[in-house]
C-alpha cells in the first residue's frame, strides 16, 4: 500500500512534467475466437459520501465495472452480454439468483460495490461467479483506493476474473511501451518513446528525440526501460526510469551498442556490442557495470533474450550464412542452433513458461511473426497477408498474446495475436507511425 502510493505520485509527476497525455489508443479485435466465455458484468453499485452541491453520491473518476467489462471483451476470450438481457442487477452476494444468469446465458458473472469515502478515495468489493457451478470464484476487497488508481484496480479485478475462468493469469494490469514517429517534413522527424496502459489508456512520453529510438526492454519490476537511442548520432544504450525523466547512458562503446535485454532477476543487461570488431553478445552487471563477453564469432551475433530461468540466452546469428536463432548458456558454453527452416529467423524471445519462442521468420517473400515449440522444433506463422514487414514481437507476461509492429496501408501500426493465432487485435493510434512495442511485466498489485 505504501509503495503503491509512491508509484501513483510518480505517475502524477510525469504527467505534469511531460505535458498533456496523448489521445487514447483504440484497441479493436479484428479476429476473435468462435465463441468466448459469455460474461455478465453488472454495473457496480455506488454508495457513500454525498456531494453537498449535487446531493448525490460522489461518483468515482473512472467507471470500474465498465473497465472490467471492456478488458474481458477485448481479450477475445470472453463475450460480453449486453445489460438489457440482465433480469436483475445484484451488487451483494445475497442478491445473486443464478437462474436469472442461466436465462441470460451467462457462464461468468461479475458484481461489485464502490463506496465513496471522500477525498477522492474509494473502497471496492468485487465478486466473480461461475454460473453453472453456482459458486463464487473471485472475492476481492480494495480499501482506500485513490481515484487515480481506480483504473489499475479495475484491471486487477479483470485479471482475477480472467484467471478464475480460463486458468491462466490475466495481463490487463500491465503497460505497453512503444515509439511514435511524427514526420515534420523535409526529412525532419520527432521520435517519442511512450508508455500506455495495456488497454491503450493514458499514453505518456518518457523520452523525445529527433533521432531514432529502438528496442525498448522493460526491467522485470516494470519501473525502468532500457533502449537504444541515436541521439548522439550513433547507437547508445540508455536506461530510463519510466516514472521520472531520470536516465543514464549505460553503453556507448566503440562500434554499435544495441539490443538491450534485462535478465529475469533485473541484475544484468544482455546487449550487443562490436568493440571486438564485430557484433557479439555481452552481459553487463548493472550494479558493478562489469562486462562479460558471451559470444565470440566473426559473424553477426545480436538480439539476445533471456530464458525465464535466467540460465541461458537465445540470439540471432548469421554464422551459417543467413540469420538463424541460437541458444547459449549464460557462461558462454553449450552453443546450440535452434532454427533450420527458411533463410531468415531473427529476434526470438521466450514465452513466460519457457516452452516456446516467438520470432520474426521469412518462410517465403513475407516476414511473419512465428512461434516455435522448443520441444518439437515445429514453427508456425501467426500472421498472414493482412500486415507486412512485421517486427519486434513480445509476449504478454501471461503468455496469452503477442504484441508486434507491422506496416498496414503505409502506416506503422501495432497489433497483437494470441499465441494460438485465434485472436487478432489492432491498436489504433490517432496519427503517426508506431513501432517497437514492448509489453511490460506485471508490476506490483494494489
Amino acid at each position, binding site marked *: 500500500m505504501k509503495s503503491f502510493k509512491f508509484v501513483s505520485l510518480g505517475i502524477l509527476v510525469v504527467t505534469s512534467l511531460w505535458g498533456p497525455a496523448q489521445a487514447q489508443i483504440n484497441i479493436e479485435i479484428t479476429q476473435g475466437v468462435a465463441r468466448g466465455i459469455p460474461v455478465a458484468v453488472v454495473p457496480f453499485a455506488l454508495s457513500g459520501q454525498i456531494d453537498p452541491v449535487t446531493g448525490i453520491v460522489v461518483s468515482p473518476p473512472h467507471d470500474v465495472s465498465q473497465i472490467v467489462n471492456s478488458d474481458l471483451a477485448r481479450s477475445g476470450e470472453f463475450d460480453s452480454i449486453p445489460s438489457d438481457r440482465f433480469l436483475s442487477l445484484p451488487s451483494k452476494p445475497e442478491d445473486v439468483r443464478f437462474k436469472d444468469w442461466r436465462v441470460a446465458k451467462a457462464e461468468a458473472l461479475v458484481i461489485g460495490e464502490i463506496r465513496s469515502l471522500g477525498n477522492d478515495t474509494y473502497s471496492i468489493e468485487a465478486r466473480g461467479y461461475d454460473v453453472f457451478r453456482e459458486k463464487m470464484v473471485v472475492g476481492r476487497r480494495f480499501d482506500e483506493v485513490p481515484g487515480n488508481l481506480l483504473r489499475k484496480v479495475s484491471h486487477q479485478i479483470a485479471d482475477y476474473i480472467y484467471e478464475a475462468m480460463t486458468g491462466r493469469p490475466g495481463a490487463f494490469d500491465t503497460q505497453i511501451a512503444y515509439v511514435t514517429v511524427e514526420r515534420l517534413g523535409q526529412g525532419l522527424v520527432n521520435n517519442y518513446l511512450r508508455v500506455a496502459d495495456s488497454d491503450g489508456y493514458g499514453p505518456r512520453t518518457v523520452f523525445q528525440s529527433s533521432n531514432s529510438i529502438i528496442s525498448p526492454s522493460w526491467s522485470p519490476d516494470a519501473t525502468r526501460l532500457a533502449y*537504444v537511442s541515436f541521439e548522439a548520432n550513433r547507437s547508445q544504450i540508455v536506461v530510463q526510469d519510466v516514472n521520472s525523466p531520470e536516465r543514464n547512458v549505460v553503453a556507448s562503446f566503440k562500434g*554499435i551498442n544495441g539490443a538491450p535485454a534485462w535478465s529475469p532477476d533485473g541484475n544484468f543487461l544482455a546487449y*550487443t556490442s562490436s568493440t571486438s*570488431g564485430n557484433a557479439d553478445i555481452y552481459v553487463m552487471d548493472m550494479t558493478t557495470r562489469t562486462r562479460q563477453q558471451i559470444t565470440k564469432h566473426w559473424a*553477426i551475433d545480436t*538480439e539476445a533474450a533471456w530464458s525465464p530461468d535466467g540460465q541461458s540466452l537465445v540470439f540471432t546469428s*548469421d554464422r551459417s550464412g543467413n540469420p538463424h536463432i541460437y541458444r547459449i548458456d549464460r557462461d558462454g558454453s553449450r552453443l546450440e542452433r535452434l532454427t533450420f527452416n527458411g533463410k531468415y529467423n*531473427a529476434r526470438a524471445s521466450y514465452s513466460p513458461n519457457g516452452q516456446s519462442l516467438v520470432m*520474426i521468420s521469412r518462410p517465403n517473400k513475407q*516476414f511473419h511473426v512465428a512461434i516455435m515449440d522448443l520441444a518439437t522444433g515445429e514453427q508456425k506463422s501467426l500472421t498472414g497477408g493482412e500486415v507486412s514487414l512485421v517486427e519486434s514481437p513480445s509476449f504478454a507476461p501471461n503468455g496469452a498474446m503477442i504484441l508486434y509492429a507491422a506496416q498496414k496501408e503505409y502506416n506503422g501500426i501495432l497489433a497483437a495475436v494470441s499465441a494460438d493465432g485465434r485472436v487478432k487485435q489492432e491498436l489504433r493510434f490517432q496519427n503517426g507511425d508506431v513501432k517497437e512495442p514492448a509489453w511490460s511485466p506485471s508490476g506490483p498489485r494494489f
Partner: protein
Amino acid sequence: MNYKMSGALVVAMLLTLTACGKKETVAVETEPAQAVVDSNAFGSGYSVTDLEAMGIMGDPVNYRTVFFAYDSSEIAERSRVIIEAHSRALGSQSGVEVTLEGHCDERGTREYNLALGERRAQGVARLMSAAGAGNNPTQSVSYGEERPVALEHNDGAWSQNRRVEILY
C-alpha cells in the same frame, strides 16, 4: 617446311594489313583524339565506356554512396571503383578524417540491420585503407534501417537505402 612457314607469314601480314586498314577507316570517321582509348579514365583502371556501363558518369570520386544487395555486405565492382577513387583522393590528404555510414533497407529486424550496416561500413573501410587511404583516421558508424533516403516500401526504395555513405 620453309614454304609452309612463309605461307603462314604471308597470312599473318595480310591479317595485319586488314586490321590496320579498318582502324584507319574508323579514325577517319570520328575524332582523331579517340583513336587511343584511355583504359585508365580518372585513374580508375577502366575506360569511360566501362565506367558508364557501371552507371558512373565522369569521375568516380564524385560519387559518395555505394550500394549493396539484400542482406549482403559484398562490395560490387561499381562500389569498388568509387571507393578506390576516394582512396586515391585521400592518399594525398593524409590526416583528413573519414566517416563511413552504413545503412540498410527496412526489411528484417532493426537490430540485425544495425549490425549489418556496421559490417557494410567496415567492408568499405577495409577496402579504402588497402587502396591507399591508410593514413586517414576512419570511423565506421551504423544507422541500420533508421535513416532511409527513400521512404517507400518497394524494391526501388530498398535498393537506394542499402548503402554506405563516404563522408569527409
